């Protein structure tokens, strides 16, 4: 479980870096937070409205990751959010496998 959480956190950090996002929090903080949120999602999987939680957690991660203002922000935000939703789904699936 810890391995998947670590992979997920690494994926989130790598995603941010490759998109050129400047981390607001430290790398370690983002990793810790991402792992915690993934674990939370895996625990509530199957609850009513679960998809809302996935969207909410993706938003929470976005808010944690982003740094300063730059061009093409809206497009980047959409890309990041979509990517995080996908990562969260995959991470939960992997955790529960």
């Amino acid at each position: 479980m810890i391995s998947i959480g670590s992979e997920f956190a690494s994926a989130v950090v790598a995603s941010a870096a490759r998109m050129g996002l400047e981390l607001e929090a430290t790398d370690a903080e983002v990793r810790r937070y991402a792992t915690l949120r993934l674990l939370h999602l895996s625990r509530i999987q199957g609850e009513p409205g679960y998809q809302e939680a996935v969207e909410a957690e993706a938003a929470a991660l976005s808010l944690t990751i982003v740094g300063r203002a730059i061009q093409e922000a809206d497009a980047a935000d959409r890309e990041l959010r979509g990517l995080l939703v996908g990562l969260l789904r995959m991470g939960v699936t992997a955790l529960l496998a």
Partner: protein
Amino acid sequence: MRAAAVLLAMVVGSACAGLAARGDAMAVVASTFRNIVQPVVLVGIGAEQDAGNITAERAAELRGYVNVIGEVLEGGQVSEVGTARDAWNLLLPLAEAGIDERVARGEIGAGVGASIKEVLRLFGARLLQLETGGGGPAARQGITLTTTQWEAVRAVLR
């Protein structure tokens, strides 16, 4: 499980390869507001009105306040992000009550409610940061409130 982790890493690599754009704190905060926070707040206001805790007029005022936050975050002709923070402090209890109500009705699970509240928490933290974090996106955009918006804010705060 290991295979899943490898697959995860592969997907990330391919998904990121074509992304050259960079993100913007203001855009993320604004889209979070539009997509998640605003609907939650509106549900909370509606629930309070339905329960008879606030009048229709007050509910309308509060909805106007929601709009003020949206306008501030969208960077229109608005000059004070601090106003959005004040509005948020007023609306947050309603938003949380709305979430609790949905959990109580069984519409969402308690864990889902916790996830949504987590976004509310981070959203509030970002608003505070936008106000006080000198040189942030909002400051650079010269955000100012119009007189009408100020009046709306004052009316709600009374």
